[in-house]
């Protein structure tokens, strides 16, 4: 599906009624007039102008790209770097204004760029883009203040093994340590432990060399964050002769696409172990997604009837709705007699996951040093994930395991029934209180996205938050690669949910990688009111770039962690966890140029979802649905059982 182009009018204006903002503007003007009547002349009855996307945005996006070269006045360090990014097919840049030389040249050279409201939000967007596509994306911020704003989301990207290129300006070398100018800081130590590679580029003619370092690290081996900081001296240095630039040769010479192949003996050993196993489980880690190995995975699993569970910061490289999926069969996983970890970047420790104690284990990983970490292995194989799965698919003989498949299917059915039984109880709570229980919200979203008129593989979702997160994790599904993004994966950040889905929305809008078949579809994010404090203003960015999102906000008037204040018997602490009640995030959304919906019942939510999806799919509008809930639903003694973590691995997993 594709978006219909949006005009610069707001939803209310398009309906032909009196523009809401014009009305509000008149009210505001009248109020101001009353206050100032005796002392100042009136402002007049001029309406406050409507929200609109500036013409300059459209014109700027349509401006022709330009690649700088050595002719004339030469090429700057920033342009050298931008050209390198273009040659490396950097998929997107997300930034807040700052680091001007670098971001301007990256935009000018023709790389898709998006400017948002905060550096942190744009870093999350870059992470969301990489999770939705598997491609490298960059984020950028200005020197100290902008760069430090990104830290939470740099860390989030790091623990998600996202190949995010973090760029930041950093004053000039000539004035370093002089206190002559503001905003200088030592950036690289700040990202220590949060990156794969980082460098403050201090020698101008090495800008290309270190750019190559960056992409070599981003696109080789196990991906992760790379951080470059650019002093002004480097970004503005001019070169009129290529010979003045060090290591100035193309990507085909500064990095390699070579991959590790499994040894034939080890591969045969793995095939024998799998063949002898009665109940094998293959854990398909993030490396399977990174290497786009989902077809080989499917082929191997179906040929030999292995049960598969996907894991990692983006879900769907093995579909939840596949008959061999064990993602909702944690009880049955305890029956496994062999576990094969493939591309599991962050290994669980023994006893964390629902796998039998002491189960035989094969681990396949591209880096030898990680084999045996956290989890004892019977067979460790150094190999690229895709190469291994292709070899496995070729080497395994066809086999049927009907009793094992039935056991897993029966367990999945049991869990689905348990979820529905819980929903009945929570539905009663919702009706008794006239407030949405988060579980009921999750169930409604589930039914709308996967059991209604929409292709259940279409919509990319993201979710976060505490109380709402416990419910969303149980109900959202991934039926194809990169369909679900658990924002809180591993690092557990609160708040970047909406901003991260900005990047995922860009990926879907542009139809990149696994999103190609669903280009232009809306994205959905389920988040909490606490998260609004971090990301709400990025709704402006969605609207500005015409990326349709449906942002479902569970509004329980508090940080979901408020039971900490009660559980620790510290009643004087409770106020710190609470917000004003009944805040209208839907109204705030309207004032950012999006649609707003307010719901308190499942029926209202159902109708709002339909309206919002229609508006997104047909007109490209974004909507925020404010779901009024109740914080007390998180108190086990009042409304048992309070939602909690899902067993891992599988649906609802947030770690490893």
């Amino acid at each position: 599906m594709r978006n219909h182009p949006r005009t610069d009018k707001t939803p209310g204006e398009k309906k032909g009624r009196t523009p809401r903002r014009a009305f509000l503007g008149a009210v505001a003007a009248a109020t101001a007039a009353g206050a100032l009547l005796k002392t100042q002349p009136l402002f007049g009855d001029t309406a406050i102008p409507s929200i609109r996307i500036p013409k300059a945005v459209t014109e700027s996006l349509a401006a022709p790209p330009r690649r700088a070269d050595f002719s004339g006045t030469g090429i700057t360090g920033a342009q050298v770097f931008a050209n390198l990014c273009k040659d490396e097919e950097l998929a997107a840049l997300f930034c807040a204004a700052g680091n001007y030389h670098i971001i301007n040249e990256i935009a000018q050279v023709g790389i898709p760029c998006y400017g948002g409201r905060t550096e942190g939000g744009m870093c999350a967007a870059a992470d969301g883009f990489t999770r939705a596509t598997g491609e490298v994306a960059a984020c950028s911020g200005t020197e100290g203040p902008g760069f430090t704003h990104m830290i939470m989301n740099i860390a989030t990207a790091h623990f998600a093994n996202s190949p995010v290129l973090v760029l930041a300006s950093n004053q000039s070398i000539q004035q370093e340590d002089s206190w002559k100018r503001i905003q200088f800081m030592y950036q690289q130590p700040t990202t220590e432990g949060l990156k794969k590679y980082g460098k403050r580029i201090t020698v101008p003619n090495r800008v290309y060399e270190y750019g190559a370092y960056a992409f070599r690290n981003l696109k080789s081996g196990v991906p992760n964050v790379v951080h470059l900081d650019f002093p002004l001296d480097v970004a503005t240095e001019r070169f009129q002769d290529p010979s003045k630039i060090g290591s100035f040769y193309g990507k085909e010479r500064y990095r390699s696409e070579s991959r590790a192949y499994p040894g034939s003996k080890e591969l045969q050993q793995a095939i024998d172990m799998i063949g002898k196993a009665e109940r094998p489980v293959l854990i398909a880690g993030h490396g399977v997604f990174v290497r786009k190995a989902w077809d080989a995975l499917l082929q191997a699993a179906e040929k030999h009837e292995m049960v598969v569970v996907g894991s990692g910061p983006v879900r769907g490289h093995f579909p939840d709705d596949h008959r061999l999926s064990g993602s909702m069969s944690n009880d049955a996983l305890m029956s496994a007699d062999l576990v094969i970890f493939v591309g599991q970047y962050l290994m669980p420790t023994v006893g964390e996951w629902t796998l039998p104690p002491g189960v035989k284990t094969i681990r396949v990983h591209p880096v030898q040093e990680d084999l045996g970490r956290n989890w004892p292995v019977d067979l460790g194989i150094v190999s690229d994930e895709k190469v291994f799965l292709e070899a496995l698919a070729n080497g395994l003989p066809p086999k049927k395991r009907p009793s094992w498949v039935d056991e897993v299917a029966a367990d999945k059915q049991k869990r689905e029934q348990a979820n529905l039984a819980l929903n009945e109880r929570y539905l009663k709570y919702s009706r008794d209180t006239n407030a949405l229980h988060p579980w009921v919200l999750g169930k409604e979203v589930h039914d709308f996205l996967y059991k209604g008129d929409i292709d259940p593989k279409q919509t990319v979702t993201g979710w976060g938050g505490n109380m709402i997160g416990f419910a969303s994790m149980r109900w959202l599904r991934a039926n194809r690669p990169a369909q679900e993004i658990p924002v809180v994966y591993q690092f557990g950040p609160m708040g970047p949910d909406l901003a991260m889905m900005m990047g995922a929305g860009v990926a879907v809008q542009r139809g990149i990688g696994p999103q190609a078949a669903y280009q232009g579809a809306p994205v959905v994010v389920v988040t909490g009111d606490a998260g609004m404090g971090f990301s709400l203003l990025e709704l402006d960015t969605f609207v500005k770039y015409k990326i349709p999102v449906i942002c479902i906000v569970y509004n329980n008037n508090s940080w979901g962690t408020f039971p900490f204040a009660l559980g620790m018997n510290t009643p004087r602490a409770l106020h710190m966890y609470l917000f004003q009640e009944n805040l209208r995030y839907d109204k705030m959304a309207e004032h950012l140029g999006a649609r707003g919906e307010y719901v308190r019942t499942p029926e209202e939510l159902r109708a709002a979802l339909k309206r919002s999806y229609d508006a997104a799919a047909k007109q490209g509008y974004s909507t925020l649905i404010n779901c009024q809930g109740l914080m007390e639903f998180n108190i086990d003694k009042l409304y048992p059982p309070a939602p909690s973590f899902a067993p891992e691995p599988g649906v609802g997993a947030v770690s490893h």
Partner: protein
Amino acid sequence: MEDYAKRGVFRGFHALPVRHGVAAFRMIWHRDRVFDLIVDTQKKTLRIPVVLPAVPSRSPLYRDFKAFVAGHHAASLPDHRRIERTKARVRCAHHRGSVSLTMTVRDGDYAYALQRLIHLVHETFLLFLTSGPYRDYLVDQLGADAEIG
């Protein structure tokens, strides 16, 4: 038991002094808690005296746990998961706030009974407690972090 220890299932595994023909072992296992395993060949039992601490005897948790344990004899379970009554019998008991598990060996196959007992405790922590309405218990009694589990 040593095989489990070698595979990292539990830590600090060691034997305690034998008393009156009763062997005992100690290890650190789920939630970093100390577990004792008592092997009484005269009574033909394997017993873990404290599987779940601080459980009120009339609580829903204890009621549910009894059903969970009894369910492991169910004929509907696949062979590889069921505790076969002709080979061993499991029961839980409540004593001074703690819940214990005892496996009675009926056919002399201690290896079978031990394997099923270890799996049962493992499932208690990874399936029973996490799938049921026991968040407060996990946090208050077993030291789970309410934010991260």
